[in-house]
């Protein structure tokens, strides 16, 4: 009986942290989906996340207002996206390399700013869990099982999940989404119809980058309430992989993000419970999963045809 209870607690714990941990992946990967569907591979997500993470943290640290933190992360993300846009769209630099540059830039600058402006690891009071209380004592979050899974997250996490249908709707049902999809597939056709390909790509990259900034902030001011150097630790790169895993579709990205964060949560519990699996293997697990998923050949055919190809008019 006791064993069953413990098992139950563990499974619940895994599901709950799986949903929580999906938050930064969802923001970053949905953002990257927009960027890639328009034809721009932004490998710098990791760097943007770090910048968003720091500025989100710093704004809350100074003002105590988590909404200002979110706004700061969004604006920093937009600016980083603008830089990426100038380099890869206007100057037509090789996207993979400029993305790595963005990563290094974000990693270095966020560390430097942290050291000079904050110094030591400090905690902030960020977004707290909503709990959905009807009265002072009656909260939906306290409903057994379902409460913990569905009603015990911060607004930032709910936002991440709400973003998925929104992104799907924008991409597939709006005139803007049509332009984004077409720009990533055949920019010449888009240009020939009098649509500014560069403008479509700039907006997509900047929106994607702003979401990456929010993804970083979701870590520092929602999930953890602290900032550390290099705290994203590869999440941004994983987000890029999730876009491939999800075949450039928001719901595919959702499945990938949940699978990934689920495995991640699993490995945390493997470590917590000191099971007889080397923790290194457990830490590797999500990444192995990514590599296997990426190697599946059918996904490649869904790749936007003009991904990573700068657009230039009249080359023939």
């Amino acid at each position, binding site marked *: 009986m006791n064993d069953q209870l413990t098992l139950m607690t563990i499974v619940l714990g895994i599901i709950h942290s799986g949903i929580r941990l999906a938050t930064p992946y969802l923001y970053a990967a949905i953002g990257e989906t927009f960027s890639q569907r328009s034809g721009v591979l932004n490998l710098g997500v990791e760097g943007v996340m770090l910048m968003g993470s720091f500025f989100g943290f710093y704004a809350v640290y100074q003002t105590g207002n988590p909404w200002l933190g979110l706004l700061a992360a969004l604006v920093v993300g937009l600016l980083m996206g603008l830089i990426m846009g100038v380099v890869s769209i206007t100057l037509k630099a090789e996207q993979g390399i400029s993305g790595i540059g963005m990563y290094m830039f974000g990693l270095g600058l966020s560390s430097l700013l942290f050291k000079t402006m904050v110094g030591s690891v400090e905690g902030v009071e960020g977004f707290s869990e909503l709990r959905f209380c009807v009265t002072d004592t009656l909260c939906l979050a306290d409903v057994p099982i379902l409460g913990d899974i569905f009603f015990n997250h911060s607004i930032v996490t709910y936002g991440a999940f709400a973003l998925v249908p929104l992104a799907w709707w924008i991409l597939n*049902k*709006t*005139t803007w989404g049509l*332009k984004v*999809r077409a720009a990533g597939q055949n920019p*010449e056709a*888009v240009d*020939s*119809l*009098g649509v500014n390909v560069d403008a479509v790509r700039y907006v997509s990259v900047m929106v994607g980058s702003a979401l990456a900034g929010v993804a970083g902030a979701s870590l520092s001011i929602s999930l953890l309430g602290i900032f550390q150097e290099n705290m994203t630790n590869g999440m941004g790169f994983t987000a890029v992989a999730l876009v491939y895993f999800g075949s450039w579709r928001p719901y595919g990205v959702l499945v990938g993000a949940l699978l990934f964060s689920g495995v991640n949560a699993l490995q945390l519990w493997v470590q917590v419970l000191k099971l007889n699996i080397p923790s290194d293997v457990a830490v590797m697990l999500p990444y192995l999963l990514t590599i296997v998923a990426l190697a599946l050949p059918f996904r490649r055919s869904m790749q936007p045809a003009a991904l990573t190809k700068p657009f230039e008019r009249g080359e023939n």
Partner: protein
Amino acid sequence: MTPDAKLLPSGLPRIESMEMRGIVKKFPGVLACDHVNFDVKAGEIHALLGENGAGKSTLMKILYGLYHPEEGEIILNGLPVEINSPTDSLNHGIGMIHQHFMLVDTLTVAENVALGLKSTREPRMDLDVVSARIRELAVKYGLKVDPNALVSKLAVGERQRVEIVKALYRGAALLVLDEPTAVLTPQEVEELFHIFRQMAADGHALIFISHKLDEIFALTDRVTVLRDGKAVGSTLTSQINKAGLAAMMVGREVSLSRERPDVTVGKVRLSLKGINAFNADGQQILKEINLEVRSGEIVGVAGISGNGQRPLAETVAGLQPVASGTVELDGQLVTGLPPARMFKAGLSYIPEERMHDGVVKDFSVAENLILQDHIHAPFSKGIFLDFKFIAKHAQRLIQAFNVKTPSRETLVKNLSGGNIQKLILARELARGPRVLIAAQPTRGVDIGATEYIHAQLLKGRAEGLATLLISEDLDEVKAMSDRIAVLFEGRIMGIVTSDEVSTEQLGLMMAGEAAAV
């Protein structure tokens, strides 16, 4: 006259006249358009004829707002207009059907049409409204299109119709048609011409770009010829003949007919038996191919682009793995051997993607002339290249094959398409092959160079070479070949004697009907 008489079937106003005056456009090192005048009126089909690089596309891209001219003006219905982008030209009622389809494969027909247009329900799309309007236009203009079809699933002819609908939907009163027939069967071309004639009769103004003389005579009212960026002549189509037009285009008299002297055919040099092959996606791209080419014979392969021509050429060249069947070169079984062994067995290969597969464009002319043979004598001694011999060899071939190049050290990327093709031809023929695969040897090559390449192929034939000539240009296949094999979806629909088959029969076979001969 009612006011309605001035409207097109699409309900939009006509463009009574369009005039381009004194257009000058410079690219680095080239004067692409040199004070060109051009005009077209409602109800008229005006041909723009010229070799590749003569400036036709540049002139039309200026009209469409993709390029900006250094000098000159565009006058619509008597008033000068500024056209700085495709948006401007579309707003003025000018539409363009591009040589390479400007369609997004992964979208539906309706989505392609709606792309970039304001919706009635912003920010949402209104694809039902768009579809209804497409159907309406389709009925008015006799264009069969299904708005819900995915473009990637459409045949080439259907895509062409989608392009026309796209332009009409945007209210095009003047349509620029940039080589619209390049990838169609003769029957599809006839159907398309019918549509164009109807559009002209309804009051549209059409500009038809082509380098195919037959099409000019079949379709157009007037013709203007461009050469080296200059308009060298403009006349009513009915007042000139083919030879006259060709001379205007090239700047000298050219021979349009090809004489195939009688040659005694010899033994079988190339034999394909029961070849089946698949592509990377597992689709069958060659089905039970049986084909023989004899010494002194040119066998043509006709078909619409993408029906197995490329895999067929690459099978013989050792680049396409075969699932079953045998390839014999000059009596040797070579199935599945790498290209180097094929070349050793007497094969020469002119690939269809000349810049991609035929030359290394950052190498010099001399280096490109020894791509296969640099590893053995006389081009190298041991591990060292014999540069003296290589230079002599290059000099000899440049002269013998009339390759126009500043020097043998010039990088190939700086040569014109026709000269690159002559260079490849020189390299491949100088190797003394017994079998030649010539894939699209004159595609995108000017009339002068085409004439020369054809002469060389016929010379090879007279000397006993077995040639497999793969071409999408039906006139070329008919004029050059002794026998013609027609490919459709990877299968040979029939092998016919070229002098006994009509273009119509070939067209039907290209569309998938078995040989009636």
